[in-house]
């Protein structure tokens, strides 16, 4: 079973040289720590920055320089700032190659719910609805089951949707699955996890064809 860093590490293998990538809050943010050496990947922060760098050294925080999670950050050489309309413009025009974000639920048609739990304080969707509606490639980083042991990979989402038929791939502590016409297609098992464990943790349609290899991290 993978921990959060393991999920981030596995997702980092989806990166390609020359990609512009938007990382959501939570596990997706950790992916930045696993960009392979020598690979040129540019991070987009939807509050108006291309070329996000690491967190600043203590004492060098700049209140005018934050990411979409409102964390103090830095730039890299070649960074550029822009307004929010241009930021979502480039997202909407599919200039961002890969969007990685978290989810509460994903359906086996690729619907995603990650912004609202009825009865709880609603904080808002931020940029998530724009990102999922427009991304040319969306990978979801999430836990396969919730704290009560219930599957979060469902036949249909029970929570209010963030976007429909948009998720392409999901990486969890147990598995990598793609969203296909036939449902979740199992691609890889986490180290030490059996196909049966994944079956039991998946409520949506799960397609298992041939031998399912273990992830290479």
């Amino acid at each position, binding site marked *: 079973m993978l921990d959060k860093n393991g999920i981030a590490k596995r997702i980092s293998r989806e990166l390609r040289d020359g990609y512009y990538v938007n990382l959501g809050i939570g596990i997706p943010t950790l992916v930045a720590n696993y960009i392979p050496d020598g690979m040129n990947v540019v991070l987009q922060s939807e509050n*108006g920055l291309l070329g996000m760098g690491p967190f600043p050294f*203590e004492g060098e925080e700049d209140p*005018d320089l934050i*990411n979409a999670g409102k964390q103090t950050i830095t730039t890299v050489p070649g960074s550029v700032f822009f307004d929010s309309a241009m*930021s979502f413009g480039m997202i909407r025009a599919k200039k961002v190659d890969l969007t990685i974000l978290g989810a509460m639920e994903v359906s086996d048609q690729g619907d995603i719910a990650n912004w609202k739990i009825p009865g709880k304080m609603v904080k*808002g*969707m931020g940029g998530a609805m724009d990102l999922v509606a427009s991304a040319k490639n969306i990978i979801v980083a999430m836990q396969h089951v919730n704290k009560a042991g219930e599957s979060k990979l469902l036949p249909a989402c029970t929570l209010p949707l963030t976007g429909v038929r948009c998720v392409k791939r999901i990486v969890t502590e147990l598995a990598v699955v793609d969203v296909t016409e036939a449902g979740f297609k199992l691609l890889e098992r986490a180290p030490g996890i059996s196909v049966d464990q994944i079956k039991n943790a998946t409520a949506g349609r799960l397609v298992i064809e041939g031998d399912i290899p273990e992830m290479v991290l």
Partner: protein
Amino acid sequence: MINKVVASADAAIAGIEDGMTLMVGGFGLCGIPENSIAALVRKGVKNLTCISNNAGVDDFGLGLLLQNRQIKKMVSSYVGENAEFERQMLSGELEVELIPQGTLATRCLASGYGMPAIFTPAGVGTEVAGGKEVRNFNGTDYLMEYAFDSHFAIVKAWKGDTSGNLVFRATSRNFNPLMAMAGKITIAEVEELVEPGQLDPDGIHTPGIFVHRIFQGSAYEKRIEQRTVRKRN
């Protein structure tokens, strides 16, 4: 050049009355018009509708207006991290309209560019689409979203000149230039006010034609919401 300078934040917000709709720039606490918000608290205008990406924190940013019960409705994309906000919302004192962030930005752009409506795929198939016109272009569904209509826009820039030209710094740009274009009356506060000709004409983000009043703010606190740092090796 036309001189848009007003003497103070209090002078800048003249004409903002109870019940009006204001656009307020900033993302979180980054790039918010601190001096103008303080002046609105002093003035005590009530029943405001505020279009702003966020609602500040309990004791800073738009949170100050919330504390003071001056806001009737927030139009935002994300309103977390604000206990007083949550209390007022759950008690029904505060009305909240949540809008996808890109839709919020583009509706500002539409106002500034005189376009009555725009199309975006954000929110299609979700509760955000409720009651909205859905239109298919080239096989993709889009929602039609309307330009914002507000009485005033209040923005914060890094530098500005007396004719209202504005330059923003780093990610404090965010919604500020968009709202500056969208306001019927636009108020800009700047960290440094200079004479016309002192800003590079190629580097101005907001042309002065969009700005009606400008003043140099003072004592910027620039509070940081998530101070994240790394250790030196």
